[in-house]
């Protein structure tokens, strides 16, 4: 296993500085309602309008960009002595990060559902209920938690490794049977529902075929299925597939956070939150796409070489 796609080592201190500035700024934006006056434009609004079209101020965007870029640099810069064992530690930490993120999402849903139940909201996509609660701060944590957990786990393991105290660890993975099959079947069953959701917005008459209970079930079950699928071993899991996994997870992180950064800079208000919800929710979907693309291209290559031989 080899580490690829890493930033040079000097990006780490730069990243830490950027992230710290971002966190301080983010704290003031979220909890002290602070905004840098220079970055504001547009008329302030009130009520529901404020939720869908909030007064424009780029301070929070700046904070998010600083935090994500800073954490990415910190997480994925080359170690002074990068070798195959540290690559193994990276895969282990990437798995931990996604695992923890799911725990966080499920916890957030349990808490949020109780809040929504109290307000007698109808279902999870009820934006009116959300604007009353206006408690979607957790989604920002869910966006940065994979990076944070990765950094904590990875550097803790590197610290143990430097002290020769590394325990005999295997990156966390589930057994191929039955978890992989359950994940695949569940995904195939429920993914169409989620695809139908944006189409329903355009053609409301489709709503008749999509009961809210089904949508909500899909919304909860899908991440679980994706998790099972992405985290279970293949029937013949080997070192090569592990290497593919590491590369794919790393690419997933890069692509995911690039998308989040682009969305932060181009999409505002409820649409932004909805997009974040989707990306955070379906994190392993991106991984699976990349992983299978890599596997498929490796297979195609090996076929070519067979013909040549």
């Amino acid at each position, binding site marked *: 296993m080899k580490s690829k796609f890493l930033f040079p080592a000097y990006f780490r201190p730069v990243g830490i500085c950027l992230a710290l500035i971002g966190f301080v700024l983010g704290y003031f934006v979220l909890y002290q309602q602070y905004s840098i006056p220079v970055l504001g434009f547009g008329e302030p609004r009130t009520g529901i309008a404020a939720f869908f079209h909030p007064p424009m101020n780029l301070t929070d965007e700046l904070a998010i960009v600083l935090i994500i870029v800073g954490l990415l640099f910190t997480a994925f810069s080359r170690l002074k002595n990068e*070798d*195959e*064992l*540290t690559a193994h530690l990276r895969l282990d930490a990437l798995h931990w990060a996604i695992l923890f993120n799911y725990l966080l999402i499920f916890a957030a849903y349990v808490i949020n559902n109780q809040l929504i139940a109290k307000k007698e909201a109808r279902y999870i996509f009820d934006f009116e209920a959300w604007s009353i609660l206006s408690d979607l701060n957790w989604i920002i944590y869910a966006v940065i938690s994979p990076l944070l957990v990765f950094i904590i786990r990875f550097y803790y393991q590197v610290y143990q*490794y430097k002290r*020769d105290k*590394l325990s005999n660890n295997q990156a966390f993975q589930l057994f191929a049977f039955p978890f992989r099959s359950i994940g695949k079947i569940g995904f195939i069953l429920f993914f169409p529902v989620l695809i139908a959701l944006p189409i329903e917005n355009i053609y409301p008459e489709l709503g008749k075929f999509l009961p809210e209970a089904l949508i909500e079930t899909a919304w909860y079950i899908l991440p679980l299925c994706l998790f099972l699928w992405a985290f279970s071993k293949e029937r013949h899991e080997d070192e090569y597939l592990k290497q593919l996994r590491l590369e794919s997870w790393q690419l997933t992180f890069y692509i995911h956070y690039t998308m989040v950064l682009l969305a932060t800079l181009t999409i505002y208000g409820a649409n932004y939150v909805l997009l974040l919800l989707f990306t955070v929710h379906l994190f392993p979907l991106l991984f699976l796409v990349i992983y299978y693309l890599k596997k498929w291209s490796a297979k195609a290559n090996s076929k070519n070489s067979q013909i040549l031989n």
Partner: protein
Amino acid sequence: MKNTIKIQRAIKNLTQAELAEKIQVSRQTINAIELGKYIPSTLLALRLAKVFEIQVEDIFQLEENEC
């Protein structure tokens, strides 16, 4: 999998750090391999064999239950 790296090092009179430098990994990685906490790639195994001037099988052997 068991290994004889420690013995081979003693024969060649190499420290973990010197061996690490020769095969381009960190000393900690040599330590983890020696203790059986990490199974190295074929590349590292071949480099180790080259340094010790023996066959890979003389360094790494399967254990009974791994055959």
